[in-house]
C-alpha cells in the first residue's frame, strides 16, 4: 500500500524546472533512496512534500489525505518529518533539550507557559532514551553547537525521529562527514528506522551508502524521475549508469 503519492507535482523557479510533473510513490515501511546529480530536483521534491515549498501544480496525498495545501505544522502532525542537508539544530541548547523540544511539540506541551519544563519527567526520560538509541547519551548535557559534525548529523535525525513520524526524509545524512563515520551513522539510522517500521526516504550522493541501505532507489534527473527500482535493477539500468553513476556496473 502506498503511504505517499504525488501526482504531476511541479515547481519551477523562473526558467528552471526544479520538479517537473513528478509522479512519485512511497510504500509503507520502505527505505527508499533518492539519487541524482546536483540540481536534479531531489531536495526540491522533499521540500515540496515536507511543506518548505509550495507546488505550482500537482497534488500530494499522504495516508489517503490530500496534504498539498497543509501547513508544515499540520504535515508534521500527520506524520511527516525531515532532517536537513545543512544540519539544523538548536545550537545554544543541550542535546537533551534538542530532542525534548521535539517531544514537547509533538505532545502539544509547548503551549504551557506557567509550568516548569523539568517537571515533565516522562518527556526527559524519552528524550534521554532517544539519545541513547542514537549513541549520543554520553553527551546529553553538552550544547549542540559543540559536538562533531557526525554527531550533529545523528542529532539532526534524532530530533526528527523524536516526532514519531510515519514518513521520515533524511536529506544527505552523511554529507560532510568522513568516510569512516558514514557506515556507523547509517547503521544506527537505518536500524532505528527499520525496527520502528518508519518509512524513510534518504537523499544521498554516496552510491555505496545508497546500494547498501535502501530497499528501492528512485533516480531523478532535471526535475523528473529517470528510473525506479531495486538496487540491482538500478545498477543494471543503463540510463541511470550513463547519466548519474558514470560507469556501468557488471
Amino acid at each position, binding site marked *: 500500500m502506498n503511504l505517499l503519492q504525488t501526482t504531476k507535482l511541479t515547481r519551477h523557479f523562473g526558467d528552471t524546472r526544479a520538479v517537473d510533473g513528478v509522479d512519485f510513490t512511497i510504500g509503507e515501511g520502505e527505505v527508499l533512496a533518492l539519487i541524482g546529480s546536483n540540481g536534479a530536483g531531489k531536495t526540491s521534491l522533499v521540500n515540496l512534500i*515536507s511543506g*518548505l515549498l509550495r507546488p505550482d501544480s500537482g497534488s500530494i496525498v499522504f495516508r489517503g489525505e490530500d496534504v498539498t495545501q497543509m501547513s*508544515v*505544522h499540520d504535515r*508534521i*502532525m500527520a506524520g511527516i*518529518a*525531515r532532517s*536537513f542537508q545543512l544540519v*539544523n*539544530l*538548536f*545550537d*545554544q*541548547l*543541550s542535546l*537533551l*533539550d534538542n530532542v*525534548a*523540544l*521535539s517531544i*514537547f*511539540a*509533538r505532545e502539544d*506541551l*509547548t*503551549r*504551557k*507557559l*506557567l*509550568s*516548569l*519544563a*523539568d517537571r*515533565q*519527567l516522562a518527556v*526527559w*526520560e524519552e528524550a*534521554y532514551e532517544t539519545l541513547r538509541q542514537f549513541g549520543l*547519551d554520553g553527551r*546529553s*548535557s553538552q550544547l549542540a553547537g559543540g559536538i562533531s559534525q557526525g554527531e550533529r548529523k545523528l542529532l539532526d535525525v534524532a*530530533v*526528527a525521529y523524536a*516526532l514519531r513520524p510515519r514518513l521520515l526524509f533524511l536529506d544527505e545524512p552523511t554529507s560532510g562527514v568522513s568516510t569512516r563515520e558514514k557506515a556507523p551513522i547509517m547503521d544506527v539510522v537505518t536500524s532505528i528506522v527499520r525496527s520502528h517500521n518508519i518509512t524513510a526516504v534518504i537523499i544521498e550522493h554516496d552510491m555505496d551508502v545508497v546500494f547498501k541501505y535502501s530497499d528501492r532507489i528512485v533516480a531523478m534527473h532535471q526535475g523528473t524521475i529517470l528510473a525506479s527500482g531495486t538496487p540491482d535493477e538500478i545498477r543494471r539500468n543503463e540510463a541511470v549508469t550513463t547519466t548519474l553513476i558514470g560507469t556501468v556496473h557488471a
Partner: protein
Amino acid sequence: MSTVPLVLHARSPAKVLPWALPLVVVLFLLPHAIDPYQTILLAYGLLMGIGALGFNLLLGYTGLLSFGHSAYFGVGAYAVALMFKYLHVQSMELYLAGAILASVVVSAIFGFVCVRYTRIFFGILTLALSQVLWSLAFKFYPITGGTDGLRVPTPTLLGLARDDKGDKILFLASNYYYYVLGFFLACVVIMWIVVNSPFGKALQAIRDNETRAEFIGIHIRRYRFVAFLVSGVFTGIAGALWVPLNGLTTPDILYWPFSGEIVFMTVLGGFRTFTGPIVGAVVFNYLKTSAVGFTVYWQALLGSILVFLVLVLPTGIVGAITQLLPAVRKRFSR
C-alpha cells in the same frame, strides 16, 4: 536510578535559590540601612528591572531586538495618569489593572504587526510604532498635557490610608519601596517560570533556529506573538509602578532614547542570563544618576561606557561574573 533526574538536577534552575534568597533578605533590610534617597533610587532600579526582564524575553530568549519598548512603558504610565485625570482613581491596584489592560491591548496590536518580521525589520517597526505613540502624547495637549505631562498624586496602596503624616519621601522610601519590591519579586518568579517552561524552551528554539523550530511543529509567529505580549505587559507594569515615584508622566518615556536605555541596561547586565537585565537595570540607574551629577556631558559618558561594554564585556556584568567564577573558585579551593 535513571540518569535523567541527575542530568536535570545538575542544571536545575532551582540552583539559584541559595544565593537568591539572601539577596531577597538584603533587599528587604536595605531601607533600614541606607538613606531614603538611595532607597528611592533602588526602587527605580527594581521597577526598571521588571521592564528589562520583559524586554529580555524578546531579546535574550526569542532573538528579537525591540527598539520600541518605551511604548509599553509609556502606555503603562499614561494609563495611570489618564485614570487619575479622567476617573479620579487613586488606588495603585486599579492603576496596575488599568496599565496591564492597556499594555495588553497595545502590545497585541503592535505585536500582530511586528512578529511577521525579524532582525532589522522588526527593530525598525517597533521603533516606528513607539514613535507614533510618542507623537500622540506630544501633540494631544488637551488629553496628555503635551510636554507639560500629567501630574499624578501619591496613590493608596492595598486600599490603606497613608500613615506617613504627609511626608512623601518617607512614603516612597518605605511603603512604596516594599510595594515595588513585592511586585518585583512576583514578576521575577513569573518570568523565571515562563523562561523555564516548555513555552520558554520553544522560544529559545525559535531564537536558535527558526527553520528547525518550524519543522518540529512550533507555530513560530504565534509563539513570538505571545512572547511579545508578555514582554509588553511586564514593561507596562514597570511603567505603572514608575509613575508614583516620578509624580509626573511626560512624553520623554515614550521617546526612542528611553527605548535605548532599556536596551542599554539589558546589555549592561547581560542578555544571555536571566538575572542580567535586573542587575543591568539597577546598575544603570545608579550609573545614570551619578553621571548626571558628575558632568553635563553625561550622555557622552554613558555612550563611552556602552562602547566599552560591547568591546570588552559583550556578555555583560553577569555574563562576565559567570565566566570568571569557575576560575575564582578554583583559585580559592587550592
